[in-house]
């Protein structure tokens, strides 16, 4: 399947999406120009680019705020998700009792619970982080549990025979076995943390404090500053891709020397 040399493959990884992106942007620009679409309906890429340059500093500042929430929520979700997954795999009773409630975390719309969270959590940043964490944590729990269960039964026997403690089995066997699934969860959750942060700010940002990208989007929307709205969206998207790529890189670093999924590409 992968007959390209390593060098070619990695060039391809960079070049191909750039070319596709460029073609897409050119098409967009061309169509907007040809049909004379007004800028307040759909701005041309050139308009967005101009806005990105002129409004760059203020947008980047907003991005920094959003990114702070994202990183905090992602970290919190990873820690909580992994701990929860460990507990679930260690003890059948804990799992049976609590797993359904982990699902609740995911399926209860933040949009709906955010107002409640603001009532109880006075500190705005914390409230936002909690909202974003709610969105982020489930894929990590779910994939990590799946991974911790996908252990080679022969190796499990080996550990049993050597009277490994639960802790040793967890650290030396279940965790390494779970890594491919865990990183799969991280790849999904990194993006969710970002949109979690944005949505949290959308629904819970009590102004004043809310200087993140969601606030920029809302305000740009109210002010029909559509190029700025798209510029903010573009920043979010780029950040999301960057987060994903870094997770992917991390996953390759950690698994490259042994797992099939991380090889070849």
């Amino acid at each position, binding site marked *: 399947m992968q007959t390209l040399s390593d060098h070619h493959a990695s060039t391809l990884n960079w070049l191909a999406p750039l070319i596709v992106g460029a073609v897409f942007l050119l098409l967009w620009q061309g169509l907007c120009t040809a049909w004379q679409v007004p800028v307040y309906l759909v701005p041309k890429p050139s308009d967005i680019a101009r806005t990105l340059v002129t409004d760059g500093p203020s947008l980047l500042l907003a991005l920094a705020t959003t990114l702070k929430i994202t990183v905090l929520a992602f970290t919190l979700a990873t820690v909580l998700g992994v701990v929860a997954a460990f507990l679930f795999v260690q003890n059948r009773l804990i799992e049976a009792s609590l797993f359904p409630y982990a699902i609740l975390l995911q399926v209860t719309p933040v949009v709906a619970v955010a107002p409640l969270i603001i009532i109880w959590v006075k500190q705005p940043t914390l409230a936002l982080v909690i909202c974003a964490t709610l969105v982020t944590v489930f894929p990590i729990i779910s994939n990590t549990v799946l991974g911790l269960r996908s252990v*080679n039964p*022969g*190796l499990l*026997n*080996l*550990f*049993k*025979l*050597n*009277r*490994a403690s639960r802790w*040793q089995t967890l650290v*030396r*066997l279940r965790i*390494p076995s779970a*890594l491919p699934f865990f990183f799969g969860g991280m790849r999904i959750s990194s993006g969710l943390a970002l949109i979690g942060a944005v949505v949290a700010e959308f629904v819970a940002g009590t102004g004043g404090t809310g200087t993140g990208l969601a606030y920029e989007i809302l305000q740009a929307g109210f002010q029909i500053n559509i190029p700025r709205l798209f510029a903010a969206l573009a920043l979010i998207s780029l950040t999301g891709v960057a987060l994903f790529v870094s997770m992917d890189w991390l996953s390759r670093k950690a*698994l490259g*020397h*042994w*797992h099939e999924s991380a090889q070849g590409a």
Partner: protein
Amino acid sequence: MLMKTSTDTLAVDEQVPALQMPDAKTVLHANKVEKTYGNGTHALARMSLRIQRGDFVSLLGPSGCGKSTLLKMFAGLEEPSHGHIRWAGADTPAKSGLTSAMVFQEATLMPWATVAANVRLPLDLQKVPRVESDARVGKALAQVGLAKFGHAYPRELSGGMQMRTSIARALVTQPDVLLMDEPFGALDEFTRNRLDTDLRALWQSTGLTVVFVTHSIYEAVFLSSRVVMMAARPGRIVADVPLEETDRSEAYRLSPPFSEHCRTLSGLLMAASDTIDLH
């Protein structure tokens, strides 16, 4: 004739219930065990087997007759469906105070760890200090001819090298009981003979008890103090042959008693295999 039939063995057990008369020398005791797997396969018919401290027992028998199943039950990795296994008179291997190591039929290595780390695993689990464990790992790897491959990952090894890693991992713990499931099957005859000799020497110089599954009658006769022959469908013991203790040098392989034992066991194996329809 050197063997007693399985019927004899069973008879003895029926008369003298094992639990009432614990025997200090008994290391492993399968007491009227039977195994039926979840899917209904009747892997082992009710059978008993007593292994003494210092025994070198080889299990021989046709493919699928339950040798691995019996070994896993000895290791405490499978529960008997009926009857029970006792370890030096105790309920569980842990309570017996015996340490054991097992070489599985598959190499069963951790793909994310180097060869050295795989071999070091049992020592790490026992919290042996790193300096000591490194030395022991080095020795064990040299013993199986993998001294230069400590840093390789399992997928970079040939099949035989993976199996040798697995053997090194069992030897490194210096256990009281060594359970080996066709450990040398994937090795060339030269390496196999060397390892046979090494294992025999190790067994002789320590109080080690070995339960050894093999398909090679020659290997069984060369190594064992006792050969247990099994038959299939359902798995059961059809013969239990003690071998006289003699000097097992390379010369022994050419001696008349060696050939005599091999011939006897060949006949038994053929009889045991008759139940399988190959055509």
